[in-house]
């Protein structure tokens, strides 16, 4: 085993893509997908290969740039967390209509049980919506292989391919065997110059091609080595697993051998032939899937008239949250081991803003300035600063989706809630806050926008922020009155001055933007450390 690499699922995908002839990776950070791009950035080989590997401003721009690279004939990968696919959805769905030229893999990392997310949506729905194949690895080797072979699958079927992973696959390490590196594609225009022109007349043709291609996708699934029908003597039950649910099933049996026949699905569309074979050989079916009951729903249909199909929909398996070996064991009526309960002395340890973080000062200033207006007026966004919702600050009243702070404040102001405040981070601002600010400017909405600028994408570990050094210019360009763009330094010693500035702008009946600027203390500490190291070398 020692010639294998010990890789996280995310890293295995990155390495598989590099070895599979990748020319460019496009991504916006988001747990648990971030390490895919970071691995490509930190691998020496990628500089020699001149692989594009810079962060994009958001998931939509990433998806579109990757499609552009595919148009030019080269192999491209896009990565984001599941909610990132919402942002990229317009491009993603339409990319299935244009088709591809160079192979295109879209990696979406789902987070069932919401370890660090607002929801546990299942990306597989999007692939079904777009009518494109899904690859869903059950182990790190498959994650590598799927990225490695996925480009060819995409080129063969002329569609983007969704590579769907979940938290445990993304963030778990195991041994991975590499394959021989493939050369990158050369620059080559699409053979049909109008393939990517989705005027209705062309789109209708493309769409029919996509529909006719469905049969070929199903055949690919039926032939795929990622899907496997494993025999079992006990035919009272047949089990279908998707992705890593397979591991949780076989964990419960000695030598990983289930007594029931098992269909392990890791490539979609669902392989019809194998499903029928399993269904016909068993009395009833159990579906174990990490995520929403998508396969289960398809098997049942609306009328649910066939043999019994059990899963999340009928409560056999919990309706929400991720699976684990014990949940699966209980579903199968097996005894499970139990440890001791968590002792009462153990207290929760919620995440909190770092000591010394500038967001802390921002909230202390803001809470003071808002005293006269009362609570319930601060719309916020997604990032470290969302922790301002918790004690001791209790400073914000919303966190919905990236960019929503400014637009929700505007809507509330439209309704008469004046002043309304938005608190947004720098990376979130350039991700999708800028366009909302334009709406507010066009109506001169009485809102106060605080862009808490720590010059990094903090929550996800400190990636380069597209906003760094540009926020004031962007606000001016969008049309904010320069007299109401106020740059401040969030430090204790400036508390009184910052409160005064906030009060002035809260009283202003138009759009004002306050930009507290102080580097994230985590990136600051890391920078100092590496500077010190360099000067010692």
């Amino acid at each position: 085993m020692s010639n294998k690499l010990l890789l996280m699922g995310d890293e295995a995908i990155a390495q598989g893509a590099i070895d599979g002839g990748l020319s460019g990776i496009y991504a916006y950070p988001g747990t648990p997908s971030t390490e895919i791009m970071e691995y490509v950035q930190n691998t020496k080989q990628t500089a020699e290969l001149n692989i594009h590997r810079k962060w994009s401003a958001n998931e939509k721009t990433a998806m579109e740039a990757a499609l552009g690279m595919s148009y030019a004939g080269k192999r491209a990968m896009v990565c984001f967390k599941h909610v990132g696919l919402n942002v990229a959805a317009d491009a993603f769905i339409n990319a299935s209509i244009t088709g591809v030229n160079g192979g295109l893999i879209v990696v979406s990392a789902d987070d069932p049980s919401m370890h660090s997310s607002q929801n546990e949506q299942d990306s597989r729905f999007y692939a079904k919506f777009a009518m494109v194949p899904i690859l869903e690895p059950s182990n790190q080797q498959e994650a590598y292989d799927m990225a490695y072979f996925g480009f060819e699958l995409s080129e063969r079927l002329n569609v983007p391919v969704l590579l769907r992973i979940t938290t445990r696959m993304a963030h778990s390490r195991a041994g991975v065997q590499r394959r021989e590196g493939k050369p990158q594609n050369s620059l080559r225009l699409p053979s049909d110059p109008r393939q990517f022109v989705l005027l209705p007349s062309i789109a209708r043709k493309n769409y029919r091609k996509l529909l006719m291609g469905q049969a070929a996708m199903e055949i690919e699934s039926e032939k795929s080595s990622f899907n496997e029908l494993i025999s079992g003597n006990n035919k009272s039950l047949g089990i279908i697993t998707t992705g890593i649910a397979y591991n949780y099933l076989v964990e419960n049996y000695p030598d990983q051998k289930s007594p029931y026949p098992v269909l392990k699905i890791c490539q979609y569309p669902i392989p019809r032939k194998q499903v029928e074979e399993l269904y016909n050989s068993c009395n009833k079916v159990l579906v174990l899937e990490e995520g929403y009951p998508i396969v289960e729903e398809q098997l049942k249909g609306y009328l649910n008239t066939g043999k019994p199909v059990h899963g999340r929909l009928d409560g056999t398996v919990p309706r929400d949250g991720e699976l684990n070996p014990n949940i699966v064991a209980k579903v199968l009526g097996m005894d499970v081991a139990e440890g001791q309960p968590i002792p009462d002395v153990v207290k929760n340890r919620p995440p909190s803003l770092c000591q010394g973080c500038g967001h802390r000062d921002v909230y202390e200033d803001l809470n003071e300035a808002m005293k006269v207006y009362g609570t319930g007026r601060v719309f916020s966004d997604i990032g470290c600063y969302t922790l301002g919702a918790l004690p001791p600050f209790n400073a914000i009243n919303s966190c919905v989706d990236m960019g929503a702070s400014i637009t929700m404040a505007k809507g509330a102001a439209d309704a008469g809630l004046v002043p309304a405040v938005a608190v947004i981070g720098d990376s979130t601002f350039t991700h999708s806050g800028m366009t909302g600010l334009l709406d507010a400017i066009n109506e001169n909405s009485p809102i106060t926008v605080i862009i808490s600028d720590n010059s990094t994408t903090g929550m996800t570990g400190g990636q380069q922020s597209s906003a760094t050094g540009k926020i004031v210019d962007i606000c001016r360009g969008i049309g904010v009155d320069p007299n109401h763009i106020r740059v401040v330094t969030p430090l204790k010693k400036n508390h009184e001055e910052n409160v005064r500035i906030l009060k002035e702008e809260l009283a202003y009946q138009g759009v004002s933007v306050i930009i507290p600027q102080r580097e994230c203390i985590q990136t600051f500490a890391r920078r100092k450390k590496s500077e010190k190291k360099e000067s010692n070398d």
Partner: protein
Amino acid sequence: MKNDIILAGVGGQGILSIAAAIGLAAVNSNLYIKQSEVHGMSQRGGDVQSHLRISDKPIASDLIPEGKADMIISVEPMEGLRYLPFLSNSGWLVTNITPYMNIPDYPDINEILAKVKSLKHHIAIDADSIAKEAGSSRASNIVMLGAASLFLDIPFERIEEGIRQLFGKKGDEVVQMNLKALRLGREFSEKNR
């Protein structure tokens, strides 16, 4: 052979270095390994955990089933107790006794240690002091690894090798200091098991 280990601590305490060192030792011993961790929100001073599984046979699940862990290694005493539902009846809790108090309602440390000591199989070690003795308080996680190494089915030399690999880039001084921390941790467990 199978070792299922839960690693516990608070964000930034270095449990992932422990996992990495054991991982290297396991790979060098031609064993199968799976190691999963939760990132993200947990980096902000919250609790962090990692599931580390080592076996001479292929491993199915990335997660250790509840009630089946052979050991909990915790660099913080309250965090070790958080994962008791995972520990098997014959499993060991190997924990540092120095609390990390970043919450206002941190419980009485004596109550926590009393609970630790009520467990049949436990090692409660002052890893911070021992690390200082070895040369750096930052090596307390390696002291913990040394204390835990007694209960791993991996030869001690392989773990030493893992430390050399892990810290090799930082120079011989750092390597020697960590090896000393490792040995002191091990000796503590030998005397106190």
